């Protein structure tokens, strides 16, 4: 038997009241944990969908330039020192950052100008962009084939013409059609498809495998820049940029702020809404607990008087009431966490917001939620417990 036997036995003796309070707190905590998880998964799902609308981080070679102007007439920037962006090293470094799990797509590019023949026009200049088709298509799911197919470009096979895709405007100007054999800088290519107009720079270029573009530009193993699409629901984009900058000291990494902010607004909206609702639920549950504890103090004045009469200090009486609330909070936290996981899985699966959302029971989270609930309940019980500890023994005993 310890001091805490008193709240335990009292809670057991008054089990309907205890059960009701635990049920109310559990409901509140289940809603909170459930909402938190659903909003988190909806946020992730939003973000995964938003990722397909382009990159939000750009990695470019570091360069120093000088703006040349004279007499108010600008001749533009002259590049003084441009460090090459080594693709292999860059990808290895990106894969090693602590927030690697948040990176969804790494899409390197090599830009070059070339001469093309084989279209309706005999020979013309064209901008060629070397890409990793798999990553590029993952990054730009808004790409659609106006003719031919997007899936046709695949890895180079020996002896086969190299696959390529043409932007809508480039195909129109050069008279290109899918399946056509082309020659770019003397290399044989076969046009797999023509992209539907996107209204972006993609319309005016020919996309070829990265290796071919590197060879044409005589820059094997290098990239002009790398586009990165990152998931930011679990961390701010600034953290990712900071880690990438540290991993790639020879390159310049920057966030495409507008894209990131728009994306984060959508993700944060769902999470903020859930947080606000959770806060209201928590405050309501705590208010109920406070009211119930105040009523318990009024009901138990005789008991408190007796405790004081047998020598309990004010601190001990306070501990009895706070520990009773904390105990109920802990149980509610445990039950609320379990119920919240179950409910969120049901909702996510039912509304098809996530694929096969399981319970994903996490012991650490379970303990954290239970302890946080115990702490919140203990804090809510401070005022009633303080009022209990101030009961004068004689007053309480004589009054009855």
């Amino acid at each position, binding site marked *: *038997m*310890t*001091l*805490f*036997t*008193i709240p335990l*036995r*009292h809670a*057991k*003796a008054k089990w309907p009241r205890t059960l009701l309070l635990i049920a109310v707190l559990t409901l509140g905590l289940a809603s909170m944990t459930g909402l938190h998880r659903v909003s988190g998964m909806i946020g992730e799902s939003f973000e995964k969908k938003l990722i397909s609308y382009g990159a939000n981080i750009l990695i470019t070679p570091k360069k120093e330039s000088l703006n040349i102007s004279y007499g108010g007439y600008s001749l533009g920037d002259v590049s003084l020192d441009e460090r090459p962006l080594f693709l292999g090293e860059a990808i290895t470094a990106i894969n090693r950052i602590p927030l690697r799990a948040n990176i969804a797509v790494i899409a390197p590019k090599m830009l070059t100008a070339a001469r093309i023949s084989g279209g309706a026009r005999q020979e013309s200049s064209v901008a060629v962009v070397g890409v990793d088709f798999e990553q590029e298509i993952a990054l730009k799911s808004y790409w659609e084939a106006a003719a031919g197919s997007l899936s046709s470009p695949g890895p180079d096979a020996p002896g086969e013409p190299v696959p390529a895709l043409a932007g809508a405007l480039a195909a129109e100007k050069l008279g290109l059609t899918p399946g056509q054999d082309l020659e770019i800088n003397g290399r044989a290519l076969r046009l797999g498809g023509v992209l539907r107009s996107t209204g972006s720079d993609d319309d005016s270029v020919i996309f070829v495998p990265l290796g071919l573009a590197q060879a044409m530009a005589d820059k094997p193993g290098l990239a002009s820049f790398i586009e990165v699409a990152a998931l930011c629901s679990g961390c701010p984009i600034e953290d990712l940029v900071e880690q990438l900058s540290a991993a790639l000291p020879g390159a310049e990494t920057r966030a495409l702020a507008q894209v990131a902010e728009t994306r984060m607004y959508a993700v944060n909206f769902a999470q903020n809404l859930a947080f606000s609702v959770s806060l209201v639920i928590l405050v309501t549950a705590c208010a109920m607990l406070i009211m119930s504890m105040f009523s318990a103090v009024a009901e138990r004045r*005789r*008991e408190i*008087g*007796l*405790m*004081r*009469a*047998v*020598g*309990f*200090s*004010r601190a*001990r009486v306070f*501990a009895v009431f706070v520990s009773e609330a904390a105990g109920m909070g802990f149980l509610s936290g445990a039950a609320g966490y379990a119920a919240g996981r179950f409910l969120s899985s049901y909702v996510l699966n039912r509304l098809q917001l996530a694929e096969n959302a399981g319970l994903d029971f996490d012991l650490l989270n379970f303990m954290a939620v239970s302890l946080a609930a115990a702490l919140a309940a203990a804090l809510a019980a401070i005022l009633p417990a303080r009022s209990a500890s101030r009961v*004068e*023994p*004689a*007053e309480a*005993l*004589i009054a*009855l």
Partner: protein
Amino acid sequence: MSATPAAPCLLHALNLVKTHPGAEKPAVDHLNMHLEQGEFLSILGRSGSGKSTLLHILSSLILPDAGKVLFQGRDICAAPDNERNHLRRRDFAVVFQQHHLLPYLSALENVLLPFLRGLSPITAQEQDNARRMLEKVGLSGKENSLPGRLSGGEQQRVAIARALARGARILFADEPTGSLDSVTGTSIIQLLRDLNREGLSIIMVTHNPEFASWTSRSITMGDGRTLQG
């Protein structure tokens, strides 16, 4: 064991005054009294005579507006709150008219209440002591019974066992037979007399002159003052 004039004074009340909030006249009005070591003192008086208020002041449950209560020469009214808590835990024990047991604790656990410290559990020695006290008041075999399962007399015995479990020096009994029938009441007074014979000093408030006659000394109160004794 009855007190002798040579017995040392254990508790001394000097010029006590207490007026309850809202009352016109003081419940205790410039009252002086004392308790000797091993004495069984009864305080008689009609309802409203101030005898319970006096007992609550003497047992440090309430503080007087003026005056002193000296226990072993020290003024307990001037002592800090924690010292008076300690006094009620160790040296003083109070038994009330209504038995005031925690209804959800067993008889044994109710007796163990004054031993509770916090996280440290009750020791085996404390448990044995509590069992012995229950045995002493005639309740062996009822250790695990909840108060609701005990008769009024048995509940009062549990309250007395609790009062004595920590080896109190003085037992303050406020109308201990007030809510009991005469047979049960007599048995409780008999128990208190036995405990007094073993050396326990007792101050008992009662309005029953017959029970008062069983004690070693009586004082009678009226209008907050000592009328007799």
